[in-house]
């Protein structure tokens, strides 16, 4: 499990995943699209939470 995690997880993975969420949020950020606001809010909170964690 640990070895698999080492191979599968690059340190940039969370940041890239956040970019994906942000990109999806931006793509949905059309006036009247109900999901765009909460999606962007989750992306922003996620980036803040991850940055706040330091190394652990």
């Amino acid at each position, binding site marked *: 499990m640990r070895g698999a995690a*080492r191979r599968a997880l690059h340190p940039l993975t969370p940041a890239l995943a956040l970019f994906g969420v942000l990109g999806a949020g*931006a793509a949905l950020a059309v006036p009247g699209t109900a999901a765009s606001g909460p999606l962007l809010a989750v992306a922003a909170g996620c980036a803040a939470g991850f*940055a706040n964690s330091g190394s652990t």
Partner: protein
Amino acid sequence: MAGVAAVLGALPQALIPPPVRAALFGVAALVVLGREIGLWRFRVPENARLVPEEVQHRAEWGALQFGFEMGTGMRTYSPSALPHLALAAVVLVVPLPVAPAVAAGFAVGRLAMPVMSNGWSDDGSWTEVWSAAERVVRPVLAFACVGALTVGTLTSWY
């Protein structure tokens, strides 16, 4: 924390015109972005204490107390100003119904680091990996956070 900020934010959001609030948030976002990408340095409010390890061994709720205190910043350090910016956004520009989404995202992001650390190894080598990637990841996180909050603000969140 986000819930309290959202309720407190109802007052300035009701009294201050949206362009003024957006401008205030914009200034804060630029200041924080500059800090995160290393243009300038300043201290951010933080408790600067660690939760004692023995807390997690207290009765059956010790682990919950440990996680709550560390996760909410009651007793922890803050290496980033992004949580403070998210809090400012909740007070100034994020509508009350959307504030829980910011909090949920924060919890997921806060959880991701220890999960990855545990999944990586149990010899502490994750810290070295993170240190090597930090110079790249921190600006990426800053642009992701500021970008998401800015797009949300400009599109009025709905």
